[in-house]
């Protein structure tokens, strides 16, 4: 499976994504510089974390105009698998490939620590390898991760089972303290209407080796190799 990792100027988790993908024999990752206008023949696209274009103006706001983004948009609309992590999630929202926006953390500070997230749906190409309700531990590291959308959009996300992950306590319960950034409905990750585009703030690529403290992120990568019938 050929996976493109898009590198914007200011991306800083591109290499981490690349290395995480390499841990799985199924993947053949490659970097694509943001000025490319053609993705070539790829089976999936990763938008990594970082500060694309310095996050000037607003996180992800300038990246949506990078030359590569029309191709990513076409790929996504045609059903291609796209995952945006952290800054990548922000870019997907700014590009309109996912609904809503990511606001400054309600603590007004950058937050970097492990969080617990609950798998809310296994009906996506990113979550088939998990159990519904399973609690995962992985790091967050962001200043603007508060998910926001209007009431109608939030209701749609809920009704269409498009909330992939929610912030919870280690025991799997919702609580104000467990939500690190004030996200609406404790949302840590969502998928689009076609379920083929994922955006999430926590970093699964940092939770794929026991040496790094957690392997809970592996399921996202493993799920990506499944076929549409399975999700």
């Amino acid at each position: 499976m050929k996976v493109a990792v898009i590198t914007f100027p200011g991306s800083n988790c591109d290499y981490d994504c690349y290395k995480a993908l390499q841990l799985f024999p199924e993947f053949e990752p490659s970097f694509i510089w943001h000025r490319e206008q053609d993705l070539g023949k790829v089976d999936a696209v990763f938008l990594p974390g970082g500060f694309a274009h310095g996050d000037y103006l607003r996180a992800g706001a300038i990246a949506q105009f990078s030359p590569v983004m029309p191709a990513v948009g076409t790929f996504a609309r045609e059903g291609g698998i796209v995952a945006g992590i952290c800054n990548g999630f922000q870019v997907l929202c700014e590009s309109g490939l996912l609904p809503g926006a990511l606001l400054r953390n309600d603590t007004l500070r950058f937050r970097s620590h492990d969080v617990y997230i609950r798998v809310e749906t296994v009906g996506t190409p990113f979550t088939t390898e998990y159990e519904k309700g399973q609690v995962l531990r992985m790091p967050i590291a962001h200043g603007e991760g508060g998910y926001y959308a209007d009431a109608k959009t939030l209701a749609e996300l809920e009704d269409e089972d498009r909330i992939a992950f929610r912030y919870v306590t280690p025991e799997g319960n919702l609580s104000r303290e467990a939500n690190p950034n004030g996200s609406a409905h404790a949302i840590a990750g969502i998928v689009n209407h076609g379920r083929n585009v994922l955006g999430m703030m926590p970093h699964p690529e940092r939770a794929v080796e026991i040496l790094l403290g957690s392997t809970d992120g592996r399921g996202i990568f493993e799920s990506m190799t499944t076929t549409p019938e399975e999700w």
Partner: protein
Amino acid sequence: MSEHQTVVLHSRPGEPDVTPRLVAEHGLSEDEYDRILGILGRAPTFTELGIFSAMWSEHCGYKNSKRLLKLLPTEAPWVIQGPGENAGVIDIGDGLALAFKVESHNHPSAVEPYQGAATGVGGILRDIFTMGARPVAILDSLRFGDLDSPRVRYLFSGVVRGIGDYGNCVGIPNIGGEVFFDRTYEGNPLVNAMCLGIMKKDEIIRGEASGTGNTLMAVGARTGRDGIHGATFASEELAEDSDESSRPRVQVGDPFTEKLLLEASLELIKSGHIVGIQDMGAAGLTSSAAEMAGRSGSGVKFDVSRVPVRESGMTPYEILLSESQERMLVVAKSGHEPEVRQILEKWELGAEPIGCVTDDGQFRVLENGTVVADIPALPLTEGCPTYEYDVEEDHKIIALRSFDMTHILKRKGDFSTQFMDLLGSPNVASKAWIYEQYDTTVRTNTIMGPGGDAGVIRFRGSRRGLAATMDCNGRYCYLDPRQGAKAAVAEAARNLVCVGAVPTAVTNCLNFGNPLKPSNYFQLREAVLGMAEACAYFETPVTGGNVSLYNETGGQVVYPTPVIGMVGILEDVSRALGHSFTQEGDLILLLGENREEIGGSEYLYRNEGVVAGSPPLVDLSAERQLQRATLSLHEEGVLHSAHDCAEGGLACALAESALSGPKGPWGVEVELNEPLAPAALLFGETQGRMLVSCDRSDADRVLGVAEKHQVPTSVIGSVQARSGTFSIVLPLGFIRVRSGEMARRYREAIPAIMEAGQP
């Protein structure tokens, strides 16, 4: 030589005349000015005076510290690059080398905490990647006044945000550091940042301008009017009103440009199109060009009108001395300029040829073809006069050492309240409020992040790992600078062996007051002597560092603070050990000897409001035995945790091991039957002690290994069920608290102060 003698320099229109007053304003003494006259054979122009002022400042020229720095051990078989380059470099095996260095940004942070701290990180990152190494970790060592002052809280939160925002954006994990709060740092906080970078051994590049005819290129951001004379600013005392007036001398950082510059520089170095590269850091274009010429014994010639600038009308003086950030000076192979430019363009950065390398040894600056400065390069970098001064220890401090502790040593009974108070001291309490603002896991190599004894990262393609720590207790150094500096080195080494790393090399940051005052110079000299002795003893050479003098405001000098940044190597990174207890029923052992030492302790400060007494003694031989014993225990694989006893003494070290796991706090039951004063036994900060835990069945093995290394060791207690009781029982005193309450106190102390203080 004949060429430069024929150069006639005219004053630039509008430039002031060089008068004795102007010379003094540039921080140069009469003697130094005479020396300049001798070097030039004529009077300097205003531009040249600015150049000398920056190059001969303490910050660039080390004129007040150079003679002392020569006393430090700098060599070992594994040292590839010692002091004098952008960063020190050591061999770490597997064909890899580690570049590392610490840098201070104290004065800028005192007037503009956010930008001051951010650009401090930017500067140290550039020092690392200009050696050809990819930065892989950041650490920070910070000092502030007491947090009860709103201004201190403003400085503290601004500095932490500045360090975080910069490092987070560039994408370098922060893996550790330290912070200490004491009134002495109120007007003059200390902000020291350290960076580690890894490269292939044969990819090292130096800041040299070699090869006559090669092209000097200004790379990266444009030059603006910010930070002019920052180096000189860093080399004088802060005036009380410096808050407002000095702000223009603080640089403004752009981490996004830095990230691009980092990638572009590493690509450039690998490409083979350049022979040298250096950050335009302190004293900007002046120091980078002069130092590169000085190192290779060549000359340089460049035209300031070709330097890309942010605004028109900048004078040569301003362009030469600007400290605008994210700029590099590159020496490209002649004819390779287009390739250099192409690499920079990919990263959306500019590269402009501004001059060339010459063979006449002159540092020659032109403006639109007219020479505006013409100075022999070597005397500019090496001819800076060096000084030694009279030393005299302050009588007040001698008196403090004999502070009467009798009433403290007599205390008996319940110490629980004092213990809880100590846990809530910002100097002991959890520092999560700080490091949770730093990305600690980006790059996916962090094995142990901040909050432990030392940070640990792996390097891909090897089983081995790197550990790093920063340490210094300014109070010890104030009371006895030689002991204090030794203690800093010893503690750093202990922190490394705690996680299982062999201490390997040191970078230092000497934060002191105005050296012209004999009491300050005494502290500097004593500290360097103590550091030299300990570094030689532990075979941890000093490969570079930074000197920050003049850390005083309104006559208040900071405690002498010689911060040690130490790196070590783990043979098997998967066996890195944390300081948290891991298992109920494990035995707790104390390696090392307890003594009745309470001088300079946090306990003394919290309870008596004084920094007094003799600081804890450092027995280098016992320290080395302890290090060896601990490393042997790591090899045996019998330990479940290891933790150094530091601020707050044995009681607080036990608490930290009980509290720091990801889940609820452990209960602890400890009993000590030593006939020492309870306050000293619980809270004294005696050096050379290590707290370890192991399975009950392994205790004899631990005792055996310790005995083999002649380290006095005993089982002092056991780990109890989570959320149980934390108790320490002595013959004449005790602590007994609920571990849950203890956890709240420890975790919430700093957040509570910072949130209550929000406007």
